[in-house]
C-alpha cells in the first residue's frame, strides 16, 4: 500500500509529537543529570507546536481509505490532548525533581501516549483505534510504574497493565467479530449489516472502551491505579486517556446509534444504563474517601457518567449536534480542571523516605489550613473543586449545563434528574476539601513543593476554568462546529 503524501501530512500533529518524543530520548543519552530542567519546557513547546499544526493544517477529511478522519472533531480532541499534555508536563517537572526521578523518558512517554490519544481522535476504523489504544496504553502503563520501587505504585502499574491488556483483548476480539459480520473494520461498515454476531462484536468493543473510560461496572481498576500512579501521571491519565477514549467511543457510537439493523435504541439503552450506574456509584463511592487522590479517582468515574449522558443524548437524532458539542466542551473543561486539582494534590503530597509508604500521603488533613499557608494554592484548588462540583460560574457548570441540556432535548429526563441530583451529592465531597483548606487550622507538615512551572500550570488551568465559566462562547462555538463530524 502506498501512502499518499496528503494523507500523511494530515497527521502532522501526531508526527510532531512523535518527533518530540524521539528528540527527548536522544538528548537524554548525552546529558548529565544536572541539566534536565529543559525537558518539561521542550515538551510544552512540542505540545504547542502540535496544537498549532492541528489548527493550521486544513482538515483533510477521510484519509487512508477512510480508516482515519481529520475533521473539526479530531482537531478539537488533538488540541485538548495537547493542552492536557503541556499542563501535565509542567506539573510533572517539580514533582519528579523533588523525588530525584527526573529523566527524559518520562516526557518521551508522555509524548508517545499523546500520539496515541490524537490518533484515537481521528480513528474511524477498529484497527486504527486499536493501534491508538495500544500506543496510548503501553506508554501509560510504563508511566504508571515510574516510581516502581514502592509497593503501591508497583501494584497500581501491574493492575493497570493486567486489566488494560484484558480490555484490549476484549476490544480486538470484538473487532474480529465485527469483521466477521461485516467484512470490514471500518466504522462506517457497521450500518450495512445486522445480526447477533455484529451485536456481540460491538458489545465487546464497547466493553473494551468502557474499561478505558472507567464506566461502572468496568471501573474497578481506577481507584487503585489513580492512587498508586505518580500524581502527574494520574492527572495525565484522568485528562488525556479519558478524552481520547471518549473521542473514539463517540465516533463509534454515533455510527452504531444510527445503524438501523441493530434494533432501535438497544445500544442507546445500554449506554444509558451505564451512564446511570457510573454517575450513581462514582459519586457514592467518592463520598467516604479521606484520601483526596482517591476521591478524585472516584470523581473521575462520576464525570465519565456525565459524559456518557452526553453520548446517550446523541442517540436522538434531533439532539445529536448539541450532545456531541456538550461532550467535547465537557472534555476540555474537565481536562483543565482535573489536571489543576491533581497538581495541587501532587504539590501537597507527603514525600516518603525510601522504603516508607505513608498511608496518609494524600489525606484531607494535608490540606488543612492551606488558605493561610498558601492562599494562592488554596484559591486555585477551591476553583477546581467548584468547577468539579458544577457550581457557577465555572467551566464545570457550563459543561454540565450543556450535557443536561442535550439530555433534556433528547427527552432523557430521568438521566438529567439523576445527573443533577448526583452532582449535588458530589458537592458534598468537593466542598469538604474547601472546608479543610479554609475552615480548619493548619497542621504542621512539610511545605508544599512549588516551582515556577507548577505556578504556570496552576495559573493556566485556573484561568481556563474561570474563562470557560464566564465567557464560554468561543469554545462552545468551536465545540459546536466540531460536532458535525466529517461524513
Amino acid at each position, binding site marked *: 500500500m502506498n501512502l499518499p503524501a496528503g494523507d500523511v501530512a494530515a497527521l502532522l500533529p501526531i508526527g510532531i509529537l512523535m518527533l518530540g518524543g524521539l528528540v527527548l530520548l536522544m538528548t537524554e543519552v548525552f546529558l548529565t543529570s544536572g541539566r534536565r530542567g529543559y525537558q518539561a519546557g521542550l515538551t510544552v513547546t512540542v505540545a504547542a507546536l502540535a496544537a498549532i499544526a492541528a489548527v493550521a493544517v486544513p482538515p483533510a477529511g477521510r484519509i487512508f481509505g477512510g480508516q482515519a478522519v481529520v475533521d473539526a472533531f479530531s482537531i478539537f480532541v488533538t488540541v485538548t490532548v495537547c493542552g492536557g499534555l503541556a499542563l501535565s508536563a509542567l506539573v510533572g517537572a517539580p514533582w519528579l525533581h523533588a523525588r530525584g526521578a527526573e529523566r527524559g523518558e518520562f516526557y518521551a512517554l508522555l509524548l508517545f501516549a499523546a500520539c496515541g490519544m490524537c490518533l484515537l481522535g481521528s480513528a474511524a476504523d477498529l484497527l486504527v483505534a486499536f493501534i491508538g489504544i495500544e500506543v496510548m496504553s503501553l506508554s501509560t502503563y510504563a508511566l504508571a510504574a515510574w516510581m516502581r520501587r514502592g509497593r503501591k505504585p508497583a501494584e497500581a502499574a501491574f493492575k493497570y497493565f493486567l486489566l488494560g491488556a484484558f480490555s484490549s483483548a476484549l476490544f480486538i476480539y470484538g473487532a474480529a467479530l465485527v469483521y466477521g459480520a461485516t467484512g470490514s473494520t471500518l466504522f462506517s461498515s457497521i450500518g450495512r449489516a445486522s445480526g447477533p454476531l455484529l451485536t456481540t462484536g460491538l458489545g465487546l468493543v464497547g466493553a473494551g472502551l468502557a474499561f478505558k473510560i472507567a464506566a461502572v461496572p468496568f471501573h474497578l481498576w481506577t481507584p487503585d491505579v489513580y492512587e498508586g500512579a505518580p500524581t502527574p501521571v494520574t492527572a495525565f491519565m484522568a485528562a488525556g486517556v479519558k478524552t481520547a477514549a471518549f473521542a473514539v467511543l463517540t465516533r463509534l457510537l454515533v455510527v452504531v446509534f444510527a445503524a438501523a439493523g441493530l434494533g432501535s435504541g438497544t445500544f442507546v439503552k445500554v449506554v444509558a444504563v451505564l451512564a446511570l450506574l457510573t454517575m450513581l456509584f462514582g459519586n457514592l463511592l467518592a463520598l467516604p474517601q479521606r484520601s483526596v487522590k482517591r476521591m478524585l479517582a472516584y470523581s473521575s468515574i462520576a464525570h465519565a457518567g456525565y459524559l456518557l449522558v452526553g453520548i446517550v443524548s446523541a442517540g436522538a437524532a434531533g439532539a445529536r449536534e448539541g450532545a456531541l*458539542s456538550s461532550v467535547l466542551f465537557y472534555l476540555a473543561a474537565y481536562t483543565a480542571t482535573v489536571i489543576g486539582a491533581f497538581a495541587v494534590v501532587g504539590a501537597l503530597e507527603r514525600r516518603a523516605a525510601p522504603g516508607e509508604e505513608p498511608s496518609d500521603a494524600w489525606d484531607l488533613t494535608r490540606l488543612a489550613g492551606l*488558605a*493561610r499557608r498558601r*492562599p494562592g494554592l488554596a484559591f486555585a484548588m477551591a476553583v477546581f473543586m*467548584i468547577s468539579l462540583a458544577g*457550581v*457557577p*460560574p465555572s467551566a464545570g*457548570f*457550563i459543561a454540565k*449545563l*450543556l450535557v*443536561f*441540556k442535550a439530555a*433534556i*432535548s433528547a427527552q432523557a*429526563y430521568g438521566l*438529567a*434528574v439523576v445527573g*443533577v*441530583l448526583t*452532582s*449535588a451529592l458530589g*458537592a*458534598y465531597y468537593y*466542598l*469538604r476539601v*474547601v*472546608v479543610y483548606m*479554609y*475552615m480548619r487550622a493548619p497542621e504542621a507538615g512539610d511545605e508544599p513543593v512549588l516551582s515556577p512551572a507548577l505556578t504556570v500550570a496552576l495559573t493556566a488551568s485556573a484561568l481556563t476554568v474561570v474563562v470557560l465559566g464566564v465567557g*464560554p*462562547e468561543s469554545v*462552545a*462555538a468551536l465545540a*459546536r462546529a466540531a460536532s458535525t463530524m466529517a461524513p
Partner: protein
Amino acid sequence: MNLLTLVVFLPLAGAIAASFFPAAERGQHRALALVVSLATFLLSLGLWFGFSSASGAPEFQFEVNVPWIRTLGIGYHVGLDGVALLLVMLTTALTPIVVLSAWNAVQERVKEFMISMLVLETAMIGTFAALDLVLFYVFWEGVLIPMYLLIGIWGSDNRLYATVKFFLYTFVASVLMLVAIIYVGGQAGGTFDYVQIRQSLHVSGSAQRWLFLAFAVAFAVKVPMFPFHTWLPDAHTEAPTAGSVILAGVLLKMGTFGFFRYAMPLFPEAALHYRSAIAALALVGIVYGALMCFVQKDMKRLVAYSSVSHLGFVMLGLMALTAEGLTGGVYQMLNHGVSTGALFLMVGILYERRHTRLISEYGGIARQVPWIAATFVIVTLSSIGLPGTNGFVGEFLILSGTWVGRLARAPWFSAVAATGVILGAVYMLVLVERVFFGPMNNPKNAKLPDLSLREWVVLAPLLILIGVMGLVPQPFLDPAKPAVDRLLARFAAAEQRLREQDPARPPTTGSQPPGFAATGAQSPALAGRD
C-alpha cells in the same frame, strides 16, 4: 455604561481590587469594602430616583440585553421592575451597614471577609436584576459560595455543620430548578430570556405542574417554608452577625422574590393548583415558627425562628393573589429585611460585649445600657407590627388581602395567621423583658458599655427606615404596584383559560365582590390605588 450593570458589578470590582492588597492591611480592607459598598448604594439611588412607576412606563427599566453564550441562547439580560428595584435597594443599603457592623467583630482574615462580602453583594443584586433564566441561576448559585465561606470561617462553634447543611440544602433544591430551566428553555425555542419565555411558553398541564414544583422547591428552601426550614436556625445561629443580617435581610427574600418573579408568572395554572397547599404550609410556618420561639434559649435562634414565621406571612400574602396581599407580601419582604436585620445587629452588639447569646445570661441590663434597650424595643415593636412602624403596614395588608381573597376558606387563613401576630408579640416582648428588664442578677453585666458612635451609625439608618416606612409607606408601595398589577392580570388570563376548559370553575383570583369586601376594610395606604 448602563447604571444597573454598574451597580451589579461595582462590588465585584472592589473585591478584585481588594485581592491585590496585602492581607496584613486590615484597615485598608475595611475601608475599601465600606467605600465600595457605599458607592454602590449611592449609585443605586440613581436607580431609585430614575425608576418610573407611572402606568405607561416600561415593565423592566434600566434594561440591557446582550448575548452572552450565543450558542446556547443565553443572554446577559438585566432590568428592574418595581419589586426587584425595592430588593436591590434593600441589598445596597444593608451591605454598607453590615460592613460597618463587622468593623471590630471580625478581626481574623479581614481581607477574605471583605472580599466575600463584596462578591456576595454582586451575586445578590444580580439575582434580583437578572432577566435571563440561566443568568439568574448563575447569580442564585453564586450567592452560595461567599455565604458558605462567611458562615464556615467566621461563624461560631458548630459552624462547619451549619455551613455544609446550608450549602447542601440550597444546592440540592436548586439543581432541580436547573433541570426545569433547561426544559423551559427548550420548550421556548432555545432561548432562556425571561421576557420571551413568559410570552411564548406553552406547556401542558402536567408538565407545568412538574416545572412549577421544581422551581417552587428551590425557592421554598430558600424562603424557608415549613418543612424545608431546618437549615435556617442552624445557619443563623452559627453565622457571624454580618452573615445573619445578610441571610435574613436579603437571602431569604431571594426565595419569595423567586416565587413572585418566576414560579408564579411562568406557571400560573400550576400555581393556582398548588396555591392552597402552599398557603397552608405558610400558615403552618407562621404558627410553628412562632411557637418554636417560645422555647429558645439562644437569642439568635429565636430571631431565626421568628424569620420562619414572618416569611410565612410573605408567602401567605403572595398566595392570596389579591392586590393587597401581593403588595403586602412585597412590603413585608422589605420590612423583614429591615427589622430582622436590625434585630440580628442588636444581638450581635450584645454578643460582642458578652460573647454569649443565651437569654439567661442577661436580665435587667436596661439600666446599664439604656440606649441599647431603647433601640431594641423599637426594633421589636417594628418586628411585631405595632401601628406606626413598618411591620404594621405589611402585616395588615397581608391579613386583609387574604381575607378578601378567593382562597378557599380565606377568612380562616386570615384568622389563624392573625394568631401568629399575637404570638409574635408575646415571644418578642418576653424576650425584651427577660433580657433588658427585671433585676440584674448577673454581675458580668454590670460594666456593659452602651452604644458606641459606630454602632449608632450602623443602627440609625434602620431605625429611621422603621419609622418612615411605617408612617409614609406610599413611596415604597408605588414601585411595586405595576408589577403586582401585571401578575394579577396574568393570573386573570390563566383563570380565563381554565374556565374555557371547565366553564363551571368558580373564580379564584382577585378580591371578592364589593358586597363582601365591606367586611375586609381597604387599607388607607391603598385608598388611592383603584
